[in-house]
């Protein structure tokens, strides 16, 4: 997987990284349809600019940038969605394919994490980025990325413990 532009089977490449990209985009949109729009734009933009697919930090940074632009473009809509999301059951966000109640509870706990911790967790666990790549994608230091990850795990552990 050297160059996404020369990669003939970009579909298999996308099927590999697509779920992680989509989950990452969901951190801002809270709507699967909008997240897919963002992922499509980011992936095609990435492909067009002839970037290397192994530069995952840049790919995720592109998704983040487009997601933020998306929010800015339609602030009113985003505010409306945020209100709806706040009123809705938080266990549906972000979307996971859970198989049992334990996984469902875990997904709900993830969705309740603070945003800055959750985006680091998403990149680390489901996109398997290194802290260096996460730091580059989010524009933060490696130490900050690592500490946010630790806080996220600690918060999850705390929220999953029986009261």
């Amino acid at each position, binding site marked *: 997987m050297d160059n996404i532009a020369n990669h003939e089977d970009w579909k298999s490449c*996308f099927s590999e990284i697509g*779920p992680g990209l*989509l989950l990452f985009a969901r951190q801002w949109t809270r709507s*699967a349809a909008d997240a*897919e729009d963002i992922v499509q734009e980011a992936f095609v933009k990435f492909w*067009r600019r002839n970037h290397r697919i192994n530069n995952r930090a840049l790919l995720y940074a592109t998704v983040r940038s487009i997601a933020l632009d998306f929010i800015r473009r339609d602030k009113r809509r985003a505010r409306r969605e945020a209100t709806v999301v706040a009123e809705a059951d938080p266990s549906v966000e972000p979307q996971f*394919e859970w198989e049992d109640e334990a996984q469902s509870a875990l997904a709900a706990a993830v969705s309740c994490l603070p945003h800055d911790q959750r985006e680091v967790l998403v990149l680390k666990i*489901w996109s398997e980025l290194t802290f260096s790549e996460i730091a580059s994608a989010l524009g933060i230091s490696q130490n900050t990325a690592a500490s946010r990850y630790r806080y996220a795990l600690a918060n999850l552990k705390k929220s999953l413990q029986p009261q």
Partner: protein
Amino acid sequence: MNDFPELESDLRALRPARPSPVLLERIEEAMVENCRASVSDAGSMAKWRWRFTETPYRFGIGLVAAAAAVVLLLARINTDQTRNQDKEIAQVSPATETRPVLPAFSGGSGADRSISSNKFVPAGATQVVYNTRNEGLQFADGSRQPLRRLRYQTQQTWQWRNPSTGASLRVSYPSEEVVLIPVSGQ
């Protein structure tokens, strides 16, 4: 993070929702559209490239034509001067002395010889590229297709030679050429 290995493995077991098949189709369409746009951009950029690459050559041809015109003009002046000198000598010299030496048509043929001796024929042309600089990618106005800008610095030399006299004329000048090459999306 070794502090929460169990929690990490639980999280990894939780799979994110897969993108819809429609998304894959939409991306494919966008890719195809992008390729078409790239091809059309490449076509328009080929015109750019032609313009950028041809202009120095046109300039070079113009310069060569100007140099050739100067050479011909000098040759003409030189010939005229030779003719005038012949005329003056003929006027000054007594007719009786010149006639036995030169035949009746020798004057004309002498002039012809003078003209032919001033003929220069092209002897060679060289173009030496002494520096190539990659000036990076750029986007032309309204284009989404990146273009790689290459600058070639060359030294062009044109030579003419007079076969009868062995004289040679050489014109040498530096030239610079900017080439915009569309970066293919394939």
